[in-house]
């Protein structure tokens, strides 16, 4: 019989398909795990709705649960329960170590252009806050592009949502 903690531990081994330094548990997209006999029900919340990794995540979770001998049932919950504040402390450290600046904490309202253009963003390579916004958008929906004036290199910033 599979236990919930075994399922959490197994999902914590699954890397994010697009940012493989961080696990699905670190990313905060697993909202709930419940075990009912053989059946293992997982609630998954997408990060960005257009993220093509969603299907890969669902399949990886199903395979992982099947590997434990459970019968997986993954429900994708399309509400606003995921925000970048759900990324764990360990996950933020892993992002930074991989050269991807973790998201700023979510303020009461939506992020504004003035905030993005401020110097509240730290370069993940040298730690300088002398960085500037290059592009609100980046190589995936969840990232912006910034430039560090101190070590003179571009870096990717996880968007706050």
């Amino acid at each position, binding site marked *: 019989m599979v236990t919930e903690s075994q399922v959490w531990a197994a999902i914590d081994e699954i890397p994010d398909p697009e940012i493989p330094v961080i696990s699905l548990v670190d990313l905060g997209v697993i909202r709930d795990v419940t075990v009912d006999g053989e059946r293992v029900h997982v609630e998954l919340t997408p990060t960005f709705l257009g993220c093509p990794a969603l299907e890969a995540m669902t399949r990886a979770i199903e395979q992982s649960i099947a590997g434990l001998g459970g019968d997986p049932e993954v429900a994708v919950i399309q509400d606003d329960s995921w925000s970048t504040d759900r990324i764990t402390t360990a996950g933020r450290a892993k992002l930074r170590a991989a050269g991807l600046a973790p998201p700023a904490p979510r303020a009461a309202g939506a992020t504004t252009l003035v905030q993005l253009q401020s110097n509240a963003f730290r370069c993940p390579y040298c730690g300088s806050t002398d960085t500037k916004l290059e592009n609100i*958008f980046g190589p995936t929906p969840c990232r912006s592009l910034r430039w560090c004036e101190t070590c003179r290199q571009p870096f990717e910033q996880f968007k706050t949502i």
Partner: protein
Amino acid sequence: MNARARLLLAIADDELIVGWRDSEWTGIAPTLEEDVAFSSIAQNEIGHARALYQLAAAELGNDADALAFDRAPDEYRCAPFVELHLLDWAHTIARRYLYEEADRVRLDALRRSDDAELAGLAAKIDREEAYHRMHAEMWAARLRDEPRFRAAVDELWPYALGMLEPELRPELARRVGLSVESTQAIERGEHTPELAELWSTMTEVRRSAPGAAW
């Protein structure tokens, strides 16, 4: 088809078609950064369409892909505004700006809806749209005094109004500093010839192998 499915399809079709139009700038935008921005915005808008089609599909008993690609052009419920094939940057930015403002008004209304599923999805979509609005506002501020941009906004205004239900139009007008009474809205319901052309390209691969698993 019930009112909820009609509403979901109208919004999903707006998002799919505007996303498709935005994606046409991939590779040909005036700067590399805008290439990245338009591609990313297009991906988000089409992602929103997918989520909305999934809700509609649950209502109608089919699937999101079938709703996105297997209907005939005249069955789409998008506003003529999103169908227009805009060939210059001034009109493109004017549409992005007016679309995001109209979408914000619509999402605000949906977030207050009694329909918990739709309200929750609208709140999620709105978080992403905040970044599209920043992009649109940045460009609108940059081009504000350019006669070509002003003319493009005025030209597209009747189309933008037609994207919203009449009761939401005054709020849009207030946000963009234009007037509802100054023009006749170009309403949802009729399609432009551009939609059939877009549809033909958009569905070409899927139509080439009906029923295939991709």
